[in-house]
């Protein structure tokens, strides 16, 4: 793959070419930032209203006690997964193409997990008590959290994930921050200098860095699988038809990576354009990302099929009735959106032409993200509306509050991502140099050799 890449630039162009983002940004950047910020404000307004008046401002009800917020939670946690997959697992597999996009993918992970972390808080009825009582704090009453509850597992899983991702991301940033420090002056130099922990780029430092990076990659790898498995247990551990199934963990992980890869593509393409990184993030790298999307999409497709098959094969009338209704009942729209977006549209990626057409691929990736959001909505809502007792069957649709807070979370995510794009190298300076050709000039070659391998 990336071995056959035709580079037009060399490692000597890297620092100048990539760090343009530290310069005065383009108007497009300001527009994007303003849009994201307005969405955040919108979300905050609606959330404040919800906290003031009560959870009732959503259209949640009995029997649908979980709706858009939990959908958003699972969606954002899922988005995060591709970042870790790309930066950690592909690092261990030495897939060279990941070096161009791993930095932005990791940033995406962190902001997605932070966005996800907001939703349990937005969702609970008594926000003012939840963080206190859901934290396992020792107390005189000997009251502990319920370690049997998947929600507690969630707290551990997500907080571990956020911590490890943050460390992993920051560690990769250290040499790059030092590069920025070396290019700036005054207060900026002081700040970047502080953030780079006095990185000098000595061989000893590089030796420690490589060892630590590899170690963190190994630490992050199981998290890719565990976090979304734990999230899936929120559903699988209950008795609810449509939720109570053993396929959920692998199914959720595959879905998470699918949505994550699609989101990476959705993010990298405009950023690449906005900061003119076409020379560094090449079409071939993007294509690799698409290939990963295609792979996970087929896994998800298989999971959907198996889920249906098992519902029928188990002979459980409640389970099968639910699956029948999913495909044909009042929530069939969500089901078919999900099927088309996650399973059928990505099949177009089998065509190299489609894969290489950035606009078409970008649109399909947006559709995949829409489909993955609908998948979670479908799993949560359509399982809850019609469960065991026909007398309790109900109906749910999102309220304006749900919708605006969801948009707010997108704003929140993009806002932080754009901030990241402005102040940090979008492409890992040190890592991209590993896969790029050396400069043409023998003089420069000589000079580069002197400084050690970059």
């Amino acid at each position, binding site marked *: 793959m990336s071995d056959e890449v035709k580079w037009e630039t060399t490692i000597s162009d890297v620092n100048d070419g990539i760090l343009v983002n530290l310069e005065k940004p383009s108007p497009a950047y300001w527009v994007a930032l303003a849009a994201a910020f307005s969405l955040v404000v919108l979300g905050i307004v609606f959330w404040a209203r919800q906290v003031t*008046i*009560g*959870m*009732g401002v959503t*259209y*949640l*009800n*009995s*029997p*649908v*006690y*979980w709706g858009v917020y939990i959908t958003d939670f699972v969606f954002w946690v899922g988005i995060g997964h591709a970042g870790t997959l790309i930066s950690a697992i592909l690092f261990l597999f030495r897939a060279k193409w990941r070096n161009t996009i791993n930095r932005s993918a990791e940033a995406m992970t962190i902001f997605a997990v932070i966005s996800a972390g907001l939703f*349990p808080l937005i*969702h*609970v*009825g*008594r926000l003012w*008590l*939840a963080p206190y*009582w*859901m934290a396992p704090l020792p107390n005189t009453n000997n*009251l*502990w*959290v*319920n370690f*049997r*509850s*998947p*929600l*507690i597992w969630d*707290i551990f899983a997500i907080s571990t994930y956020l911590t490890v991702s943050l460390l992993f991301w920051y560690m990769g940033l250290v040499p790059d921050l030092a590069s920025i420090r070396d290019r700036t002056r005054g207060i900026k130099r002081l700040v970047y200098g502080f953030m780079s922990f006095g990185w000098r780029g000595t061989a000893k430092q590089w030796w420690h860095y490589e060892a630590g990076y590899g170690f963190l990659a190994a630490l992050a790898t199981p998290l890719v699988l565990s976090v979304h498995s734990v999230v899936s247990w*929120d559903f699988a*551990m*209950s*008795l*609810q038809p449509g939720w109570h199934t053993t396929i959920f963990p692998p199914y959720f992980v595959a879905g998470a990576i699918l949505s994550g890869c699609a989101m990476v593509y959705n993010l990298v393409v405009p950023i690449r354009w906005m900061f003119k990184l076409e020379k560094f993030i090449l079409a071939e790298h993007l294509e690799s990302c698409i290939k990963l999307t295609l792979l996970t999409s087929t896994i998800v497709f298989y999971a959907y099929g198996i889920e249906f098959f098992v519902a029928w094969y188990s002979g459980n*009338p*409640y389970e099968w*009735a639910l699956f029948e209704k999913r495909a044909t009942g009042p929530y069939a729209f969500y089901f078919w959106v999900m099927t088309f977006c996650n399973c059928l549209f990505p099949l177009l990626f089998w065509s190299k032409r489609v894969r290489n057409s950035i606009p078409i691929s970008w649109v399909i990736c947006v559709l995949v993200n829409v489909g993955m959001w609908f998948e979670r909505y479908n799993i949560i809502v359509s399982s*809850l509306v*019609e*469960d*065991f*007792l*026909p*007398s*309790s*069957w*109900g*109906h749910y649709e999102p309220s304006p509050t749900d919708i605006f807070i969801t948009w707010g979370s997108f704003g929140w995510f993009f806002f932080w991502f754009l901030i990241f794009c402005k102040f940090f190298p979008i492409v890992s300076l040190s890592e991209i140099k590993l896969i790029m050709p050396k400069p043409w000039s023998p003089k420069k070659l000589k000079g580069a050799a002197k400084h050690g391998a970059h």
Partner: protein
Amino acid sequence: MSITNEPGTPQSMHEDAYAEAPSADDPSRGREVWAPTEGPFEKPAKALEVGPLYVGVEERLPELAEREETVAAANPPKKRGKLSVDRRDFMKLFSASSLAATAACIERPLEKAIPFVQQPVDQWPGEPVFYATTCGECATGCGVMVRTREGRPTKLEGLPEHPISKGKLCAVGQSSLQGLFHPERPRAPKIRFGQRMEAVTWDEVYEHLGSKVAKTQKIGILTGGATGNRHGFFREFLERIGSTRDRLYTYDSNTLMESVAAAHKLAYGVNAMPRADLDQAKVIVGIGADFLDVGSSVVYHTHGYTQSHAFKAGNRGKHYQFESILTRTGAKADERFVIPPGAETLTTLLLVRALIENKRSKGSAAARQQIQAVLDQKAEVVASGYERVGIKREDLDKLANELLDEASIVMCAGSSAFDENATNLQLAAIMANELIGAYDVTLHLAKGWAVPPGQPGDLQRFLADAPGLDVLIVIDANPIFSLPPAFAVQDLLAKIPTVASIQEFPNEVDALAHYSLNGHHYLESWGDEQPVAGFWSARQPTVRATHDSRQAEDILMWVAASAKKPLGYVDYRDYLKKKWAAVHQVTGSQLDFDRFFDGVLQRGFVNTGASQAVSSVSGSLAASFKYVDTGRGGLRLIAPLDMRLGDGKHAHKPILQELPDALTMITWDSWVALNPTTCTKQGLKRGDVVKVQGPGGSFEAAVFPLPGLHPEAVVVPRGNGHALGAGYIQGGVGVNPLVAMARGSDALTGAPVTSGQAVKLSATGAVRPLAMTQKHNDIANRTDIVKKTSLVEARANLTKKRDLDTVPDLYPALPKAEYRWGMAIDLARCTGCGACQVACSTENNVAQVGHQMVLQGREMHWIKIDRYFEGSTDNPQVTFQPMLCQHCNHAPCEAVCPVFATNHDPEGLNAMTYNRCVGTRYCANACPYKIRRFNWFTYKWNEMGTDEYWKRDHSPRPMNPDVTVRTRGVMEKCTFCYQRVRDVKHKVKIRNTPLVDGEIKTACQQTCPAEAITFGNLFDPSAAVTQQRQDNRAYLALGGTPEKKEFGIKTLPNVSYLADVTLKENAASEHHGHE
């Protein structure tokens, strides 16, 4: 001020509050109870414990008494002319007399709440005091026991020994507290000055109204149905002020009693209504009857019905129902025949024919001759009747045979059959019951229901007399709303120079009355009822008046005094005591009167043993029988009384508005119920708004396709439709179907026609979503939710035991404890009346949320009654299933709560710690029964989700102080009334003897007139609940089919159900669904 309404005499407070009523098998239960007994009030001493409130506080706080005197001295009485008793003297007299009368009635300075400096003898903070009184929500006269805490009623329960209520209460009775504490009860009387109503003092009212009354002799009183001394008092008042006794008019929307009494007057010459003892009837035939819905006494009938009809010891009675609408009564029937609207009389005649042609039929020769004469007279109608009614002759012959086999009864008419033939129908019913020999077996005339004086025919008399009246006093009646507007009562009242309206809750009459006077709620009043001949049920105040209201009778006394024609009684209590002196004499009690009276108040009722004189059939039935052919075909509007809201009297109580109609599950609205086939034909769907055009007018409401209706029936319940602005709760809710009715009257009594008029439907194109608590109607082919068994099977397995608790699973064994609380619910008994829901909401401070929230699926009921239709949409089988927290031993909710807010109690309860709950709502998702309720907002008592409502001045609220009030963001659910469990556990600990089975009653169980719910300790092998859990009919909801080694979801609930028992073979396999 006069203190006429101090709380009366409580039941002995240390007596067990939840004492068991005589059990079903107790020989002392049933008819024998009606005989005069050696009541407990024959025993002295204990009966005479001092009163409940602040007793003797004057003695201990002399400054208070002193202050009263100073105040009195500072305001010397005004000269008021030649009153025989000056008002202030009157008050002094009263004070003196009440001091003398009983220690319970000392005048107490209650203007300010005073903490106990020294605790009164029988007031223990936190310890309830119980009062026996008589429910005043309808004229049935059920005895109730009012639980008060610190002087405030918190819960109503049936009076265990009361032979009518048998310790049970209906949904309406349970809702009384919301009437008492309703925030919209006026704070002061009002007088109209031109267009303006102005709040005035009572003195002004007496003065003004007194002067009006003094000027004329054409004074009338219109009031509702009542059976005690009330009407006698009104007559005495009318007579004293110069009017005549017969200017007392009564009107009760439930005209069933009126038509039955009229028919008995015609047939037997006695104005009486026989008491139907359904527990004695092996075969019950209902023809348009709604004895389980509204009828003449829902609680009495439901109790009796389930005694004979529900499966018990291998047997059960049969019930055949003929009706054009679907009632709960019909829903419980074993065989249900759908007849066209208005065909009830014809159907009964056909049955009478089948009976008289049967050689085994009973009845005296004279009676048979009379009956034959009627049949001969109507030979033509009868001959063509089979085709008209759509029933085969053989079926009726078979039915006649069955009726003659065993003790049986024919119950005719309910509010769905109030048409021109309502009294004819009762005559036909008399004929049928004569022929099956029901009198003195299942129907008791001598000890029958007492009929309010003046009936039948009072309404027509009122309509004729009203234009000539100068003063009309309307007391606890609402003729404007409860009569079809075609009767033009509003115009009639508008023309009367002076209209005074004394209402317990303001209604449409107050809007045009010149005097809008706020009367006492029945829980603040003195009174009595004589529901059954010779059986007196006493009413006493259980709380001091919450507002500045007055009892209607006392108002009249003061008005009479002001008009210088005093009645000569201190107050109504004084009047009652004088009247009760006669009762005292009849009972032959050896006690002196005061002790007797206190005893009666304490016990709640007394039986004098008197009965009505009964003769055999006299007069000419054929001459009386004036059958009116109401025509056939087309759509017919039927406006039955709503089982919850009555004729609209109870529409102001949110708890009843939010109680779903048992069959449609609709709350907070009116609906047009149509047969699904009719709907399809007309292209109507659920929620489509149709215009119903009747002969008298039109209204618009949303359609509900209700299976089981006759295709010609258009059923719109009464109760709602109060105009917008007529109150925050009921104003603007639903429609009043009576607006479409033309003026029509019963051919014999003149009672208004409220059903059977031809109407046209037209779609308006609008859609109005109906707020239903259950949106899906069938069981969706699920086999382990509702189970049924056939009688044959149930009988064969009668002695077989079942072990529901041995389920193969990986959980550790349940911990051993002293108790494991469990509940058993018998589906064969549940009639879906909803009393449990209201009782539960009252006991547990469950919020009502209003129309919009119910639409969104956010009702808060801790117990709900699921209703499932099966079979054909033309004549479905209906099953009711109470559904509440199942208190699973392997509870899915407990495992998932992150903060242990829901947890398993060592005694098997699924407990909820509200303080701990953060509102993840995970438990509710995990709950397979979906009975957890979330507080989406802070629901304030009957706030209805609007801020505007809450801003109003609220009276003290009837919250149960034993139960935490939940705030927003918190999950809640059934607790098995843990506060009651705890109370009894404390008692058990103190008295140091083991718990007696049945000692603890949950609120739902306590009130259930069908006795469908049993609660107790599952570790006690002899407990009723344990027995029922081991019964062969027992099953666990969602517990699979254990006999096939399928154990469902294995939640192992502590609630078990007993399968319904049908007369059909192979009931279990019948699970055809339909939407």
